[in-house]
């Protein structure tokens, strides 16, 4: 039954959220370094540190603090940063907006690279050009996004001076600067992801190429590529879309690193800064937002499976 299977998925999601929130909270407690001590400086008196810990609420029992955090989350109140004294909710929303641009643009680049290259590599898989494409995508997979970023900066920013080496401008304040700032980070994220995706597109298309209906289409006189475009691409796209969704997670993590390389004030920069300065409440909430994003994507993928493929419903119920 679709509905009960769906309910089951939601139940699993709820439990996952709860378990991860406990884990995230617990990890904050074992991070070495006292936020009050970092804020007050290394020679601060014990009284001053104790006072600030009390102000932060760090002196209260762990279960109380956990429940308060959960209660706040449920009401959309993430608390106040220890160091900047700003509301954490708007802070994260602000940074999330930047990271979303980055992930979205990276995803677009990945698709623009992977779909044509993957199809080509599949259609020509026995020819040298197809083999070369497959090998090329292997190389791409092996390059980390930050390395790609550094290479792109060296070539296009430092030497050719076509694009900025880093920085960020909001799309509303200066669209041209925004677009220029987005190109290199999106490329460094998207090219690597695109290389990964190319392999999935290739194998997925190869599989479809061996299907009977495509052989029939070709027997009717269609050339391989038109036959594929007309009859096979939709089928081939199902596993690719799944992989794409799951890659969102990788893209998010890649964005954290790329933000550092390109000096972009997104969620990743916020997280790294907060970890360094032991702004634990910020760390806790950013990590939770990332966990929620990953869980939500995974749940969506599973729900899509259920909707698309009736066999899944039967097997799981």
């Amino acid at each position, binding site marked *: 039954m679709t509905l009960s299977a769906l309910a089951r998925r939601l139940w699993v999601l709820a439990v996952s959220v709860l378990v991860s929130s406990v884990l995230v909270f617990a990890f904050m407690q074992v991070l070495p370094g006292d936020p009050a001590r970092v804020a007050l400086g290394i*020679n*601060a008196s014990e009284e001053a540190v104790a006072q600030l810990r009390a102000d932060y609420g760090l002196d209260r029992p762990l279960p109380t603090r956990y429940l308060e955090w959960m209660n706040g989350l449920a009401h959309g109140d993430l608390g106040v940063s220890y160091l900047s004294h700003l509301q954490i909710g708007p802070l994260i929303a602000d940074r999330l907006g930047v990271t979303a641009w980055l992930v979205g643009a990276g995803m677009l680049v990945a698709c623009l690279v992977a779909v044509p290259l993957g199809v080509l590599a599949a259609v020509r898989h026995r020819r040298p050009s197809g083999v070369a494409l497959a090998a090329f995508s292997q190389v791409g997979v092996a390059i980390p996004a930050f390395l790609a970023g550094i290479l792109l900066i060296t070539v296009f920013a430092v030497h050719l001076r076509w694009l900025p080496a880093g920085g960020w401008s909001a799309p509303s304040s200066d669209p041209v600067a925004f677009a220029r700032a987005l190109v290199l980070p999106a490329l460094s994220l998207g090219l690597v992801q695109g290389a990964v995706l190319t392999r999935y597109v290739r194998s997925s298309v190869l599989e479809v190429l061996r299907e009977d209906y495509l052989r029939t289409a070709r027997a009717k006189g269609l050339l391989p590529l038109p036959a594929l475009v007309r009859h096979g691409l939709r089928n081939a796209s199902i596993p690719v879309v799944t992989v794409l969704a799951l890659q969102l997670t990788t893209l998010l993590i890649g964005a954290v690193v790329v933000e550092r390389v390109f000096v972009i004030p997104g969620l990743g920069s916020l997280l790294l800064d907060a970890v360094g300065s032991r702004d634990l409440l910020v760390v806790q909430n950013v990590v939770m937002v990332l966990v929620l994003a990953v869980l939500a994507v995974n749940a969506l993928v599973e729900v899509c499976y259920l909707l698309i493929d009736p066999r899944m419903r039967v097997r799981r119920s």
Partner: protein
Amino acid sequence: MGTATKRPVVLAAVTLALVGCSAGSTADSAGSAQEGNALAVGMVAEPTNLDFTTTDGAAIPQALLTNVYEGLVKVDESGAIVPALAKSWTISPDRRTYTFELATDATFSDGTPFTADDAVFSIERVKQDWTTSLAAAMDVVTSVKATSPAQVTVTLARPSNDWLYRMTTRIGAMFSRTGVDSLATKTVGTGPYTVDTWKRGDSLKLKRNPHYGGTAPYFDSVTLRYYKDPTALNNALLTGSIDVISTVQAPESLAQFTGDERFVVTEGTTNGEVVLSFNSARPPFDDVRVRQAARAAIDKKTLLATCWAGRGHLIGSMVAPTDPWYEDLTGVAPYDPAKAKALLAKAGTPNPAVRLRLPTLPYATSCGQVVKSDLEKVGFKVTLDQLEFPAAWITQVLRGGDYDASIIAHVEPRDLPTLYGNPKYYLHYDNKKVREAIAAADAGDEATQVAKMKEAARVIAEDAASDWLFLLPNLTVADKDITGLPKNSLSESFDLTGLARS
């Protein structure tokens, strides 16, 4: 990150260690820096908020002191104490009473004039409301009075030369009586600039203070952009996003600027002594012979060339060359591996085991390997350990004292007393002679101060209280038409007021 440095001790190292930010209404960090009469400076550590009265770290005063907030006195390029908001001052014969004559043309950025009452308010506020450890330097003050609208008299519990010096740091900053309600986000100071816009994670933009009493600065606005990654900072200058790099984080990267006629590289000095600290409270470094052996075993000249591209200065004790009591003490413990072996044999421990716990800071990680190798050549057995800085290092080494040796830059100016005058400090160095010399220096006149500080510096050098690897250089790179850059970094502030374009 690294964040706190100019603190009583170590936090300045954070600045040296890490990254930063953006632009205001006229320029975005992705765009060009030179729109209108504007300047963009690349910095490393971004402030977490704008309130240095309750938040520690070097980043806030670096951006705001001198530029936005001014003190009664400040240090100049040569390390001397010179007038700022006070035109002049006198010290009573018993050296306990300081009378400051204030400038009468100073105005806060909200338009209210600066008066003696503001000075009294600011000094008293340090004792009452400041929470960071630096505020303790004001404890020696017993009373502060406005003796006329333009005269302030401060009385100390005992004579203290150090107090006037600390007045040049952030604790001497003058605040408006009506401008301290939201210090974390709003600044009201008497300096030539005010905070215009702040893009968190990106940049802090300062613009001219329309009410500034002195000569207006050359630039209408200065944007401080923050880069946590040294390569990103370098690239920003290479691509024209910024005009100045305030501190070069990786000296080996200077080559790309020295060979480029667009830029000028300047090397000056700092107050940042890179110290190989010994834990004198436990074996093996509780034995002076083992400490001396370690000093003789390390070839500082080669070390500096290997791990900091030869940039920096060799010092033989805890004194920077810009302090009045500096003398060259590098000859006290010359490189002599044979002597090191002999000292270890004499101490009865030819192969002492040492745990060298390094903070994750560039100079510490790169120099740690050289130190380990030099020590092992004479018989030490060294275990290397990396601790995340600041939080983990502070917890385990500085607070916990769980280490045999460490490497850290102590960047607070004139910090010999902090390190070697307090046996409870993490070095656990305990020497009555040194403590007495420090106390006499603080209480005496200038000649006594110089003589006594020299004495203390020599004793700790002979006693091998630490090894002093080198003094961090102040390396700046700027577009070649930028003038007025401070050569030495002796103050907590990155002074923007004298910058211009030729």
